[in-house]
C-alpha cells in the first residue's frame, strides 16, 4: 500500500535506491503516450455514469491532487468525458470511506457503517451508476455501503473498466460489474465458466 511503503521508508530510515510510485500515475502516462489506446465508444449510447473514490492513502496522504487528476484523466478516457461525475468534496479534501486505518478488520462494524454514511450520501448525490474505487479497502467498504444503505451501485476496480474499454475484458473477469455491463464488449465470450 502506497502510504505504508513511503511513510515506512522515511520513518525507519530504510536505505533504498528505487522510486516508489503508484500505478494511477502510470495509467494516465501510458494513455497520454499512446501505449494504451482505450476507446469510450462502448458507452456512447449507454451513457452509464461513473464516479470515483480518491483513496486517502494515495491522494491526500501521498501524492496530492496531481495523482487525482491523473486518475480522472484515465477514467474519462475510458468511460467518456461526459459520463464522469465527481463527488463533492473531492481530491485532497475527499472524505475517507471508512474502510481505511484497519477499520474493516477491527470488528466495529456498526460504527464503520455509520462512518461511511457520509460517503454513501456523497455517492448518491452524484447520481452515478458506478463507483470506481482506487484501493481494496475502499472497494470492500463502499461495496458494503452500497448494500447496507440500499443504493445498490456496483463498485469496481479501475483495471476492469480500462480492460473493457481496450476490448480485452473476458467473461470471467467481470465479478463486480452490474448486469448492464455483463454483456458489453465481451472478449472471447466462449470461455465463460
Amino acid at each position, binding site marked *: *500500500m*502506497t*502510504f505504508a*511503503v513511503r*511513510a*515506512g*521508508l522515511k520513518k*525507519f530510515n*530504510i536505505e*533504498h535506491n*528505487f*522510486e*516508489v*510510485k*503508484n*500505478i494511477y500515475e*502510470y495509467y494516465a502516462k*501510458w494513455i497520454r503516450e499512446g*501505449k*494504451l489506446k482505450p476507446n469510450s465508444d462502448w458507452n456512447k449510447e449507454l451513457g452509464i455514469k461513473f464516479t470515483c473514490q480518491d*483513496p*486517502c492513502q*494515495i491522494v*491526500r*496522504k501521498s501524492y496530492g491532487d496531481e495523482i487525482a487528476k491523473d486518475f480522472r484523466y484515465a477514467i474519462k478516457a475510458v468511460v467518456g468525458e461526459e459520463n464522469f461525475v465527481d463527488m463533492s468534496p473531492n481530491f*485532497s*479534501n*475527499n472524505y*475517507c470511506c*471508512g*474502510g*481505511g*486505518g*484497519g*477499520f*474493516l*478488520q*477491527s*470488528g*466495529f462494524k456498526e*460504527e*464503520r457503517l*455509520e*462512518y*461511511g*454514511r457520509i460517503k454513501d450520501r456523497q455517492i448518491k448525490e452524484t447520481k452515478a451508476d458506478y463507483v470506481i474505487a482506487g484501493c*481494496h479497502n475502499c472497494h470492500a467498504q463502499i461495496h458494503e455501503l452500497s448494500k447496507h444503505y440500499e443504493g445498490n451501485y456496483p463498485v469496481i476496480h479501475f*483495471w*476492469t473498466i*480500462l*480492460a473493457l474499454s*481496450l476490448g*480485452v*475484458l*473476458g467473461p470471467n*473477469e467481470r*465479478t463486480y460489474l452490474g448486469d448492464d455491463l455483463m454483456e458489453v464488449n465481451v*472478449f*472471447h465470450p466462449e*470461455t465463460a465458466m
Partner: protein
Amino acid sequence: MSETAIKLRKREKTSLFDQVKELLPDGGNLNLCLTCGLCSSGCPATGLVSMDPRKMLRMIALGLDEEVLASDWPWMCTMCQRCIYACPMKIDIPQLIYNIRAQRPREERPKGILGSCDMALKNDTNSAMGTNEEDFIFVVEDVLEQYQEEQPEFAEMQAPIDKEGAEFFLNQNSREPVTEPDEMVPLWKILHLAGVDWTYGSKGWAGENYCMFLADDDAWKHVVQTQTDQTHKLKCKTYLNTE
C-alpha cells in the same frame, strides 16, 4: 457528548501530552490548538462512541490519559488525515492516534488487525492472508497458462516472478491470488498491451500492510524492509503500488 463526568487530576510526567510534544516538534504542538472545531466538523468519525478529534485532543491536554486509552475511538479514526488538511494549525491528530494505538498492549488490540499483521509476519511474502511463496507462484502460473491458451491474442503475455532487472516491481493485494485469481488478469493484460517491463517478487509481493494499522513499528518496518530487499535484489528501478 460523554455520559460520564470528566474528572480532572494533575497531569503526569509521562503523559500522552508530553510524549506527543516530544514526538511531534513541528506538527503536534497541542498548545497551538485553537479549539475551533474544524477538525471535528469535517471528520466522519465524529460522534462515534461519543468522541471526536477535538474532544480527544482536549482530553489529552487535560491529562485524561486513562479515559483516552480506554476508548475504542482511536480504532475508529481511520487516520485519513482530513483533519490535518482542515486544521489552521496543521495539528497531526492521526499521528497522535497512532501513538495512542501503540500504547495498548499488543495482544489487546483489535483481533482482526492483529491477526492480519501476524499472518504477514509468517512468510516473507508479507501476505496478510498467509499465502506463501509456493502457493503464490502456483496460482499465478496456473492462471496465466489458462489465459494464454484460451485467449490466443495473449499467448505471449507474461506474469513474471523474480525477473531480475525489470523496470517495475509490482505489488498485489492478497485478495486476488487467494480469493479471486481471475481479477489479476485485466491488470496483466493492460501491462502487456502497454509493453511494460515488470515483475512480482516471490518475497514481498503482497501490497497490504496491517502492521502499520496495528501501530506495531517493528512489524511495519519488517514488512517494508522485506519489500525493499526484494526490490534491490531484483534491481528494479521503481516499486509500483497497485493501490
